[in-house]
């Protein structure tokens, strides 16, 4: 070595090549981070019961490690939160636990799952799903460098992040600290949002310190109201703002605010328009502009609305954020030959208020001029359609003021409702959206089927729509049906076919009816929704409606029509959301099952395989969705006669269940039984036996020895042993249980006794066989739906048994028990 390390002016360090300097961080100050990270991943070999593999991140809130969960061996992420000592205060601990509980309930493909929070070695630690991916800023920079037309790819990833945030909002969880570092994008371009609610937890625990500074969040991404009023001011619209800045960053490759011009409450710098940084369609400017308006009232009011506009941009539909430009609307309308523009006009007009008329007049003049120019080239038919579109948007403009007033009334009403019930913005964590909706429903509609005369009809319809939608989401289908039915009647009476809300409402009504069990009503409403969305040119909604319509048709056994719906839905999803979306994969799975049942095995297998591939991409670490996909594909393969591969997929589903369920669950046993029965039916007794044994052990742990779900795999295992000729093993597996006096009667218990009889018959122990048969009879439950058939079958069997052994009296006695 060349002298002591602290020699004042040693020889100039040997230059690494610049690429290596970057890798090791010597070019910048990041070398200390790399050094610490290298050291930390060696030093923190354990954190409580968790084995630490490496540090994967470090920031103001604490460190994140890649770790191994004891027992399961599953890879997880651990986040050690700095600066929270829960031991300090009980009330702090309770608040923390409540917030964490809300966060652990979030379950969405675009949200990083938080499994639990624990106190380990005195530190508060969050146990989270381990996500492989890059922060959206780094990820999108690479995409722009790689592909010339990166825009759709970047927008799709961003929209998926919005979906994750929207999911949390629906469950009253506000993020409060959205920034590129909290949005990871994986190799297939799907985003995962992390650290929900953490900002709130830290904020509250920091107590007076933050109260003094009055601000929590990441400068440069936090909304202005957070600066002015602190963390309590955060509502869903603050998240909309931060997402707007994230979108700006992803689109342009630079932050909206540089370190120098970071906003202050008194001076809020204007955000540059994205298209000035990079060549982008102007819709990008509008969407970013609307999302990042300094006044919350002028932003998108929900993240769903923001996501909707991003999707609209992707599909070439008009965006809601568009300023009132009649030429823009008309261009979209003419290009698409649709009415969709009318709906945009309502909102755009509402935004601009007084300037509507003059702008519209100017635009009309321009449009007329343009039309005259196009006249020569355009066909007569196209002109007619254009005229219709023009008329529609002019009519819409006249209604704009009325509509604006209604929207205002509606927004106020919802705000009051939420304020009274305490849910939503900044309220108590004890109130859920669900309680707020219950409150709103009971408050405004004590008799849900009756109209409320005090409300403007359209306000009532919109309120019922919201209530119905929420009830549908949380599985209260009867209430959803009532409210949505009234809402659809009002919209229909008020606007008829021109109502822009009607298609969405009847779509929801159709879904609610289907889930409530009314397939005929569901089919009718979904068919209407499909037609309406088709007319409106709303492709994403059309795809959703087609998917649901397909399901309702399948339940009515209209296979051909259902397949047609599914196919169209898949084509549309691929077009709007890009290939391999989650939605397309769900419809594709439905189609595969449908085809398989209809005997079209070749296409069913191809579709099923594709679905599995997509699902694997979407959930690389596996989840219930993927396990189901494996299991369904197993059934499809089995029906197609591809036994070996079917077994392989059944097994994949089973091993995934083992990994994802922390303790034994019946669902696992059910999957195992399905495979066992299939194997048994083709005489693969050894394998079936092994499967049944596993199912038995799982059910036994889940619900005890004598539960019917435990007896089922037991009698089936006995049967496999008997067919394999291993009579002693078979006997020892069933005899003790059959002879147990406390064994409650059930079909399964009776089958087990019957198996014992079969064993004794094979052993030529007639007396014992007869006793076992009697026991099988006694164990038959008196009240089950399958009871008469099971009884008859068993009686016939016992009668034959005695007849073959010359005991005609007994045979006759049993024959009398047979039904006439």
């Amino acid at each position, binding site marked *: *070595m*060349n002298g*002591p*390390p*602290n*020699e*004042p002016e*040693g020889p100039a*360090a*040997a*230059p*690494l090549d610049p690429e*290596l300097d970057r*890798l*090791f961080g*010597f070019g910048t100050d990041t*070398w*200390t981070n*790399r*050094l*610490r*990270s*290298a*050291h930390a*991943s*060696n030093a923190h070999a354990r954190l409580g019961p968790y084995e630490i*593999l*490496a540090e994967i991140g470090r920031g103001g809130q604490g460190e994140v490690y*890649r770790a191994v969960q004891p027992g*399961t*061996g*599953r*890879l997880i992420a651990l986040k050690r939160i700095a600066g929270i000592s829960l031991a300090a205060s009980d009330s702090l601990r309770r608040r923390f636990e409540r917030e964490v509980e809300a966060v652990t309930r979030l379950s969405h493909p675009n949200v990083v799952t938080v499994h639990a929070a624990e106190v380990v070695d005195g530190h508060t630690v969050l146990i989270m799903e381990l996500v*492989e991916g890059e922060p959206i800023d780094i990820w999108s920079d690479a995409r722009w460098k790689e592909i010339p037309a990166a825009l759709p790819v970047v927008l799709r990833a961003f929209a998926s992040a919005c979906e994750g945030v929207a999911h949390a909002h629906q469950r009253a969880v506000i993020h409060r600290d959205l920034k590129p570092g909290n949005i990871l994008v994986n*190799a297939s371009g799907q985003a995962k949002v992390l650290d929900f609610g953490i900002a709130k937890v830290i904020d509250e625990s920091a107590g007076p310190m933050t109260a003094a500074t009055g601000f929590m969040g990441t400068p440069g991404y936090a909304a202005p109201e957070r600066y002015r009023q602190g963390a309590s001011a955060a509502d869903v619209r603050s998240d909309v703002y931060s997402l707007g800045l994230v979108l700006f960053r992803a689109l342009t490759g630079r932050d909206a605010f540089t370190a120098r011009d970071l906003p202050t409450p008194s001076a809020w710098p204007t955000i540059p328009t994205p298209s000035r940084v990079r060549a982008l369609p102007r819709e990008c400017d509008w969407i970013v502009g609307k999302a990042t308006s300094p006044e919350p009232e002028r932003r998108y009011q929900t993240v769903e609305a923001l996501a909707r506009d991003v999707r609209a941009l992707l599909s070439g539909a008009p965006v809601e954020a568009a300023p009132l430009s009649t030429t823009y609307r008309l261009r979209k309308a003419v290009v698409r030959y649709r009415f969709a523009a009318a709906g945009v006009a309502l909102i755009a007009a509402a935004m601009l208020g007084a300037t509507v008329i003059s702008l519209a007049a100017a635009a009309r003049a321009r449009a007329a001029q343009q039309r005259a120019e196009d006249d020569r080239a355009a066909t007569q038919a196209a002109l007619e359609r254009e005229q219709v579109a023009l008329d529609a948007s002019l009519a819409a403009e006249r209604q704009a003021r009325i509509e604006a007033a209604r929207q205002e009334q509606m927004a106020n009403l919802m705000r009051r409702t939420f304020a009274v019930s305490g849910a939503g913005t900044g309220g108590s964590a004890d109130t859920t959206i669900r309680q707020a909706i219950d409150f709103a429903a009971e408050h405004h509609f004590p008799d849900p089927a009756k109209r409320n005369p005090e409300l403007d009809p359209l306000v009532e319809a919109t309120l019922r729509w919201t209530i119905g939608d929420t009830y549908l989401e949380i599985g209260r289908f009867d209430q959803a049906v009532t409210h949505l039915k009234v809402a659809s009647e009002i919209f229909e009476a008020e606007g008829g076919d021109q109502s822009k809300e009607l298609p969405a409402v009847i779509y929801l009504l159709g879904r609610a009816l289907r889930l409530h069990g009314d397939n005929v009503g569901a089919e009718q409403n979904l068919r209407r929704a499909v037609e309406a969305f088709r007319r409106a040119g709303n492709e994403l909604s059309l795809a959703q409606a087609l998917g649901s319509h397909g399901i309702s048709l399948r339940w009515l056994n209209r296979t051909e029509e259902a397949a047609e719906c599914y196919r169209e839905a898949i084509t549309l999803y691929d077009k709007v959301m890009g290939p391999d979306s989650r939605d397309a994969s769900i419809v594709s799975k439905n189609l595969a099952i449908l085809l398989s049942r209809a005997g079209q095995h070749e296409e069913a297998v191809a579709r099923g395989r594709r679905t599995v591939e997509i699902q*694997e991409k979407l959930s*690389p*670490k*596996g989840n219930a969705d993927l396990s189901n996909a494996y299991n369904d594909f197993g059934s499809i393969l089995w029906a197609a006669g591809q036994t070996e591969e079917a077994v392989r997929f059944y*097994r*994949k589903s*089973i*091993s*995934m269940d*083992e*990994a*994802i369920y922390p303790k034994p669950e019946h669902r696992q046993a059910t999957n195992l039984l399905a495979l066992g029965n299939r194997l048994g039916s083709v005489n693969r007794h050894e394998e079936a036996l092994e499967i049944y044994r596993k199912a038995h052990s799982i059910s036994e742990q889940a619900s005890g020895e004598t539960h019917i779900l435990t007896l089922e795999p037991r009698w089936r295992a006995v049967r496999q042993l008997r067919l394999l000729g291993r009579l002693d093993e078979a006997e020892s597996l069933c005899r003790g249980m059959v002879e147990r006096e406390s064994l409650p009667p059930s079909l399964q218990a009776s089958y087990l006794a019957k198996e014992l009889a079969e064993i004794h018959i094979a052993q030529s122990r007639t007396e014992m066989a007869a006793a076992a048969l009697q026991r099988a009879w006694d164990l038959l439950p008196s009240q089950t739906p399958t009871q008469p058939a099971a009884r008859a079958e068993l009686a016939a069997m016992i009668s034959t048994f005695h007849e073959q052994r010359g005991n005609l009296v007994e045979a006759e006695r049993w024959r009398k028990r047979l039904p006439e």
Partner: protein
Amino acid sequence: MSVSRPSQPPTTSVTLLGRLRDPADEQAWHEFDRRYRTLIVRFLRSRGLQVADAEDTAQIVLTKLVTGLRAFEYDASKGGFRAYLFRCTRSGLSDFFLRQDNHAHPVSLETTRIAASANADPEAERAFEREWVEHHYRLAVERYRVTAENRAAAILDATLAGRSVKTIAEDLAMNEAAVHKAQQRLRDRLRELIAEQLRDEEDPHERPSE
């Protein structure tokens, strides 16, 4: 493809990689093993392998590496030693998954996931790069400590613990500028040590003549 000149005697093969090509140089093999086994094991663990599996697989990879290096299968023009190390490790990883698959045991969820994508896993290369960087940092710190004086070692420890310049200055009764200077010297020295380590990863037969 070799650019080595006949005038260059084999004894100038001072890099570790160069020495490794001499089957008689057992010391080189031990040094190589000492340096890279941990890196390989850590990487394999980060891809979801259990400790025992990672150790078995690392053994196979190391054997393959040495055989490959001696047989001149390694071609520095294809991205250098790091890329070669990664390729060998990744192929060891996918072989491991193939073996697993043949046994048709219900394997763990993580294993299933990685098995499906061992060769196409876009995260693997980044993970390897990360492990490789950290590995060289650790190696350099280990070597630095051997000769570091008390003050220098204290600066290193405080930097590792993530302490701010201000607190370090207070703890060690120095002024902040001096701490800053000392940290810069630490950085330069680590950079130098890492440069040395990386030179050991070069193939003498491929080094351009000065």
